[in-house]
């Protein structure tokens, strides 16, 4: 029973992390229907940027963290401005191919500067952040993950529900022509969604880097893991991304714990196929409202 609970807790923590990584992906898809194949690389960029700030510049952890988030937010703007904006109005497939190109470019950039080896962050999370309930132990990283994901969920929830900018972003995702007719700055919305996506990606990159070490190949492959998560949750649902992430996280840890560690990467996909057979839009995907 203890083993089960421990797996459950680990699964939820890992899953939340997947969920957060997927959130940025969903955000871009929601506003501009672009599948961002460079998401894993954005994650890696965030992780390496943080690494550079704490090992080379030797900034305090908190300041480095905040600077990384700000830097990646700006990076998102720059990506949109220089790579995606010229393609507005072109076929979607061109834009998607562009993100594949971006992925290669970012990966090459990281390899050029840091190489393909495994780097690690210095230990900085204090042991007091760990939680202990009886025999269940939550490592400090996972506590931090829990806190950060809940915080971001609440913040994004408020942003999209209450703030004007959040409502404009949803309106563009919903009906671009109508949004344009009311004077919503559609290009600004696209830029903002890339900026937020890059910010969220960098944050999950850092957390993953703390858990698994910082390696460009590992981090960018998380970009692929985002796909089952978002497809499961529904490509256009931010809440769905989190739930999808938790489900995939749980499936992985339970398979790893009870069946065999080598199956842990496969079982989530098998379950995914079955869920899609029953709910083709994903668990929380929008079913088109049709009025006749």
């Amino acid at each position: 029973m203890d083993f089960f609970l421990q797996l459950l807790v680990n699964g939820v923590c890992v899953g939340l992390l997947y969920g957060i990584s997927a959130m940025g992906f969903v955000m871009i898809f929601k506003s501009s229907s672009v599948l961002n194949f460079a998401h894993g690389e954005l994650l890696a960029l965030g992780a390496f940027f943080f690494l550079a700030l704490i090992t080379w510049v030797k900034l305090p952890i908190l300041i480095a963290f905040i600077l990384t988030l700000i830097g990646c937010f700006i990076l998102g703007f720059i990506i949109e401005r220089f790579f995606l904006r010229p393609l507005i109005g072109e076929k979607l497939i061109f834009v998607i191919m562009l993100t594949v190109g971006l992925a290669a470019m970012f990966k090459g950039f990281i390899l050029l500067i840091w190489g393909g080896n495994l780097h690690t962050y210095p230990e900085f999370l204090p042991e007091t952040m760990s939680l202990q309930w009886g025999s269940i132990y939550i490592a400090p990283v996972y506590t931090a993950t829990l806190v950060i994901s809940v915080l971001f969920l609440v913040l994004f929830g408020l942003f999209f529900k209450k703030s004007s900018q959040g409502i404009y972003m949803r309106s563009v995702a919903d009906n671009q022509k109508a949004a344009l007719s009311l004077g919503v700055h559609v290009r600004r919305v696209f830029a903002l969604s890339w900026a937020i996506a890059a910010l969220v990606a960098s944050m999950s990159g850092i957390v993953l880097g703390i858990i698994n070490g910082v390696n460009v190949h590992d981090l960018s492959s998380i970009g692929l893991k985002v796909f089952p998560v978002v497809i499961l949750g529904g490509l256009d649902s931010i809440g769905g991304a989190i739930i999808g992430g938790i489900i995939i996280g749980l499936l992985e840890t339970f398979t790893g714990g009870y069946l065999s560690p080598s199956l842990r990467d496969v079982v989530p996909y098998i379950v995914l196929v079955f869920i899609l057979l029953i709910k083709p839009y994903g668990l929380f995907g929008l079913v088109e409202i049709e009025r006749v």
Partner: protein
Amino acid sequence: MGEILLQINNISVVYSDVIQVLKGVSLSVEKGHIVSLLGSNGAGKTTTLKAISGLLKPENGEVTDGSIIYENKNIQNQSPEYITRQGIIQVLEGRQPFKYLTIEENLRVGTATRIGKPYKQDLELVYNYFPALVARRKSLAGYCSGGELQMLVIGRALMAHPQLLMLDEPSLGLAPLVVKEIFNIIKKINEEHDTTIILVEQNANMALQVAHYGYVMENGKIVMEGTAKELSENPDVKEFYLGMAASGVAKSYKDVKSYRRRKRWL
């Protein structure tokens, strides 16, 4: 004659560099007036509106000739972001709500062009015009009825405090009673806020009842213009757009020679 708010001089509009839709359209809109634009399907009414609002661009259309002057500024081929900020708001044809936003959130998008995005007071204003929306304020627009949606999209445009409001077929697919209500409100908006309105309509009868001035379009050209009264008394307009025989009585199917009269401008 009063002050001219919008002047269109001889514009041509071409889609995808080859398809010419407007062939020299000129019209002027007086401040504080309701001007209606009549004509059959494909005459170019919607294109004229889109040329004004800048929404041609995303559809690969362009004003190739002539000028659109709004408050002494040339606005042809400007971006919709710029034009909406000058106070010109177009309500698109066929009710385009944000389906997955609630009524209230839909209305809030209307404030996009305004500085500071104030919305609380204006919500009250819109709910005053359209009390039917109050009960539905928290429900998704996708689940509202056609009449409610038409009220919603007009209300949404009002949130922007437009100086020039362009309505594209507000009566489309609505029950006669609802149409009447909508037109009453259009008149009220015009009177109470001094909002200039361009009204594109198939329902010529209704449109001429509320409008001050009207233009008739056919094949990408303006073929007739006049005050609403002149137009509704014109025998051609009566026959072709109001569904009456030239003598003024309602047209009957017994009248076998219904094609005797031709649109003489074609």
